[in-house]
C-alpha cells in the first residue's frame, strides 16, 4: 500500500473544487452547511512523526465523512423540527454529536499540528508556558501525563489539554469517541487535542499507541495553543 505520489492539499483542492477556506456555506433553504477545512500544510509536511499517508486518509476520508454526515444530520434535524417531530429530533442527537463532534475536534486537531519548519514542536513561551509550569511542574511532566492518559484510553477518543475559562486553570482530560471537550465541563476550552482513534496512527504505529503519542509532540503547534490560552486568560 505505497503512496507513490503524495498529492498536496492544494492540488487536491483544485481537483475537487474545494474552496480556499473550509467553512460554512448557506444553502438555498437558509440552512448552514459545513465544509472540510483546508490543512495549512501539505500532507507530507509532518513526517516522520505522522506519515503523509495517514494525514491524507485522515483529512480526506475520515474528517470529510464527519462533515458530510453532519450536514446530512442537520438537514434531517431541520426537517424534523419544522414538522414538530419530537421523537425524530431526539433520535438525531447522537448522529449530530458523533459527526458534529468529529468535525469540531478534527478542525482543532489540524491547527494543533505544524511542520517543524513552521514551529512544530517548539515549546510554549509566555503565559501558557508559565501556567504549565505552575499547574504541572514542567512541559515534560504535562506531556507524560497526557501520554499516560492517552495510552490508557479504552477504545476511541481524544486526550486534551484545556483551560477552564472560569477558574483560569489548565486541565488534562479525555473524551470518548467524538465527544468535544466541552462535554466534560461547559467552561472548558480546548488548547491541544490529540486524536487517539486507531485511524490516527495505525498504518504507521500499528498497535503501539505510546510510540505515536511520544512522537506527535515533535509536531505539536504550541503557538496556536498559546494564542487560544491568551485569549481566554488575558
Amino acid at each position, binding site marked *: 500500500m505505497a503512496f507513490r505520489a503524495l498529492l498536496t492539499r492544494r492540488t487536491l483542492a483544485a481537483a475537487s473544487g474545494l474552496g480556499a477556506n473550509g467553512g460554512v456555506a448557506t444553502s438555498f433553504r437558509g440552512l448552514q452547511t459545513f465544509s472540510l477545512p483546508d490543512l495549512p500544510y501539505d500532507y507530507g509536511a509532518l513526517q516522520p512523526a505522522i506519515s503523509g499517508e495517514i494525514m491524507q486518509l485522515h483529512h480526506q476520508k475520515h474528517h470529510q465523512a464527519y462533515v458530510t454526515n453532519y450536514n446530512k444530520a442537520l438537514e434531517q434535524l431541520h426537517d424534523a423540527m419544522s414538522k414538530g417531530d419530537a421523537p425524530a429530533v431526539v433520535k438525531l442527537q447522537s448522529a449530530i454529536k458523533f459527526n458534529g463532534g468529529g468535525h469540531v475536534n478534527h478542525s482543532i486537531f489540524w491547527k494543533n499540528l505544524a511542520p517543524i519548519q513552521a514551529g512544530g514542536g517548539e515549546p510554549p513561551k509566555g503565559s501558557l508556558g508559565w501556567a504549565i509550569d505552575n499547574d504541572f511542574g514542567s512541559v515534560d511532566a504535562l506531556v507524560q501525563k497526557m501520554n499516560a492518559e492517552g495510552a490508557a484510553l479504552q477504545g*476511541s477518543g481524544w486526550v486534551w489539554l484545556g483551560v477552564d475559562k472560569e477558574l483560569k486553570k489548565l486541565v488534562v482530560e479525555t473524551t470518548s469517541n467524538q465527544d468535544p471537550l466541552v462535554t466534560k465541563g461547559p467552561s472548558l476550552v480546548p488548547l491541544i487535542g490529540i486524536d487517539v482513534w486507531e485511524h490516527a496512527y495505525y498504518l504507521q504505529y500499528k498497535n503501539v499507541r505510546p510510540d505515536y503519542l511520544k512522537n506527535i509532540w515533535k509536531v505539536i503547534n504550541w503557538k496556536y495553543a498559546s494564542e487560544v490560552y491568551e485569549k481566554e486568560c488575558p
Partner: protein
Amino acid sequence: MSANTMSYHWGKHHRSYVDNLNKQILGTELQGKSLEDVIVQTYNNGDLHPAFNNAAQVWNHDFFWDSMKPGGGGKPSGELLKLIERDFGSFEKFAEEFRAAAATQFGSGWAWLAFNPRPSDGKELVVLKTPNAVNPLVLGYTALLTIDVWEHAYYLDYQNRRPDYISIFMEKLVSWDAVSAKLEVAKAQAA
C-alpha cells in the same frame, strides 16, 4: 483478511489483552475464576471495574476467531436458517441488519448475532451492536456470531472502508457451522 492483519490482531492486540488481564488479576479475588465470571463481575452492571476491558476483549477475540474459517461465507442451513427466517423474515433481511449494525457502531465495538433465552416478543435471535468491550454475556444473551469493528480489525486492509470489510467477512469468512453449533448449545441451555 490479510496475514499481516492477523499477525497484529492476534499476535499483538489479543495477546496484550491476555497478558494485561493476567497481570491485573494476579493476587486478587478474580484470580482462579472462569473468564465468564470475571467478565460479569467486572462489568458490575455497567459501572466497569478496571479489569473488564481486558477480560471481555480476551473473550471477544476468542469468539471472533471462532466465528470465522478459511473458505467461509455462504448461507446457514438447518435449524439456524429456520430460526433466522422465523425471526428476521429472511436470511437477506438478517444479513442487512447485521451489516448495518456493524457499519453504524460508532467508534470501537462489535456487532453480534445473539440468542435471547427469554424474549418478550418471541424472537430468540437478535442482532446487537456493542461499544468497546461490551458483549452479549453481560446482557444475559448467548453470543452466536460476532464481527470486530474496532479500527485495528480492518485498517491495514481496508483503511476507512469498513463496509468493504464487513462485506468480505459475510462473503468469505463467516463460519456458519460454528454459529449452528453455538445455537444448539444455547437452545439446550435454555430448555
